[in-house]
């Protein structure tokens, strides 16, 4: 059995807690949240051990792994504390609000030989996995352009009451929504050489972004455009979509469907034909042992659990969405805050001040 503690009992935390609770190889060893009310209800009705102090849970619950589903600004400290104790970590996205912090956490996890995973669940969606397989097979040839989109009805009024409405706490469409299509682009095309034309727009929010647009350039000569809006009520729920153009064809995928157009010049993979082929999630998604909200959430946690099991047996495991991979996404997110074509005189002093202040705070903490 793998003993796992959960930090953060918000919407994602509760969902993960349920999936872990149904996993045959997992014992939920504790739940930590600052909201005592919810913990009391969980303890009263489900018997799970409750903690209001994460450090205490990490110290005393004898954990193999921890799942961190807290506001993003707290990820660095919590992940660091877990790694320091030799505890494997699954952390919700983004890994941190600073690319440098993410890279340090990735190095530390690797040095310690700990399983690390970040909740970029789209890599476990059958259609997006199929895109990756087709690209690796060269089905559409050399990719020249991609469009990565995410839309949904999250902020539809000027007022919000949670951490999601403050960028400084890791809220906003950039960290919450844009992270997903950016992670998919990283998976498909690698790390970009440039980020330009970044727009962090506001529709309703006062202290953070509701829209993210921009252009990414790659060493291969390919380009990509990002289009994200979480104030889009024309969508019933969050929708992520990727379109890729190559010299031998085109791929369009969302979580339900992949549509592939292959030109006469393409070498045609099994199951496809020249012209259009459509495959859908029913054919592409392997079943999971417990379903809640989507196979991808169960599959990603199952992958983490199995990786921890292998680590405990002294075996190697297949890293998916590990901290190294997530750090690459965090680098790109940060570049949207400081795009290559931004005016240095406008951005540099603020960025420098922010980094200096953060470095000072970190120095004080470690002193």
């Amino acid at each position, binding site marked *: 059995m793998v003993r796992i503690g959960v930090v953060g*009992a*918000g*919407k994602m935390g*509760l*969902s993960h*807690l*349920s*999936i*872990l*609770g*149904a996993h045959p190889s997992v014992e939920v060893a504790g739940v930590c949240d600052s*909201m005592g*009310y*919810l913990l*009391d*209800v*969980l303890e*009263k*009705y*489900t*018997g799970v051990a409750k903690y209001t102090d994460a450090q205490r849970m990490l110290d005393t619950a004898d954990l193999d792994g921890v799942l961190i589903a807290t506001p993003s600004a707290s990820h660095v400290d919590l992940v660091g504390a877990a790694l320091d104790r030799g505890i494997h970590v699954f952390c919700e996205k983004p890994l941190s609000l600073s690319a440098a912090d993410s890279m340090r956490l990735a190095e530390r996890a690797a040095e310690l030989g700990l399983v690390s995973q970040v909740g970029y669940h789209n890599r476990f969606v059958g259609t997006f996995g199929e895109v990756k397989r087709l690209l690796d097979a060269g089905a559409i040839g050399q990719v020249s352009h991609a469009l990565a989109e995410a839309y949904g*009805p*999250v*902020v539809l*009024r000027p007022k*919000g*009451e*949670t951490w*999601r409405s403050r960028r400084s706490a890791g809220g906003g469409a950039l960290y919450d929504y844009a992270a997903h299509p950016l992670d998919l682009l990283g998976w498909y095309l690698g790390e970009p050489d440039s980020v330009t034309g970044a727009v962090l727009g506001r529709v309703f929010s006062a202290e953070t972004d509701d829209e993210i647009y921009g252009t990414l350039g790659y060493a291969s000569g390919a380009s990509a455009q990002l289009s994200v809006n979480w104030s889009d009520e024309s969508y*019933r*729920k969050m*929708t992520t979509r990727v379109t890729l153009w190559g010299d031998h064809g085109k791929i369009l995928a*969302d*979580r*339900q*469907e992949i549509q592939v157009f292959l030109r006469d010049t393409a070498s045609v993979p099994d199951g496809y034909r020249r012209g259009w082929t459509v495959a*859908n*999630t*029913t*054919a592409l998604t392997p*079943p*999971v*042992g*417990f*379903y*809640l*909200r989507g*196979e991808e959430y169960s599959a990603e946690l199952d992958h983490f659990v199995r990786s921890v099991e292998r680590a405990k047996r002294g075996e190697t495991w297949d890293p998916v969405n590990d901290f190294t991979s997530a750090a690459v996404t965090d680098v790109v997110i940060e570049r949207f805050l400081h795009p290559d074509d931004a005016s240095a005189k406008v951005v540099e002093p603020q960025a420098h001040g922010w980094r200096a202040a953060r470095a000072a705070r970190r120095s004080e903490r470690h002193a």
Partner: protein
Amino acid sequence: MKLDRLLFGDNQFFGVNHMSEERARQSAMRFQDTGAIIEVIDSAYAAGVRSFMCTTHERIAEVAEHVRAHPDRYDGFTFLPCMPYAHKYANAVTEHGMLGALRHFLPDEGYLNAAMRGGRAFAGKDVEGLVTLLVDSEMKMFRGLSTPVVFLQNVVVDLLLGLRFDAAFSIFADHVRSRYGAEPGFITMNLPLALETLERAGIENPIVCSNMNKLSFRVSGGTAAYDEVLATRRFRPIAMSVFASGAIPAREALEWVHARPQIESIVFGASSRQHIEATVDIVEELWGETVAR
């Protein structure tokens, strides 16, 4: 009570299609007007369907109002509410946080006993008061209509299964029976685990609706596990996602269900008179009886 063989669902009215988001959008466009929804329900009624298994979406409240206003046209018609409509709660949690969302949906005014129940429930961390209040809030739209079964939606059922929050199931079941004279029903994507849990919660011979289809689409644990519980467990199964959003041809899909006689009912969604009539015809042919019992 005896469930009808064929229950009419409502996914098609709210842009839910597991195969294609484009088709989901087209469907959502067509049914933006409640009149269009009523038209399809009338087609189902004309074809002999008498049970409407529906969410507690605001638009269904308008359908309920229409049926209430024209009782002569809807003799024998029943609503089987499935609560809560998850997206409105999920979006509220995102916007207001967990407690803020609860405050958002609990009535601020109204009956003194409701306010007292809510206030005491909050202070005592007693979910019974909260659950019953939320159920009552959702059931308001069906006032005066026949609701022989009241379902708990799969997002909530499955969340509670994983949390091992067994008490919530018996609280829901007791309240639905005592206050509404209805049978509790449970929708789940995890049938074997749900049956185990409902039995542990003391709910005997439960009405349970789950994905059951030839493709094993969203059949957690696989078809063999589902066939085993069909053969060994005492419960009243309703099959959903029988056509796997159109991935399985209708006759083939229904023949597969018919080969499993323990399955008591099928819930299906369709957008056109032709599809509704075709489905009704196949069901009546295979089972040799009308779809409403």
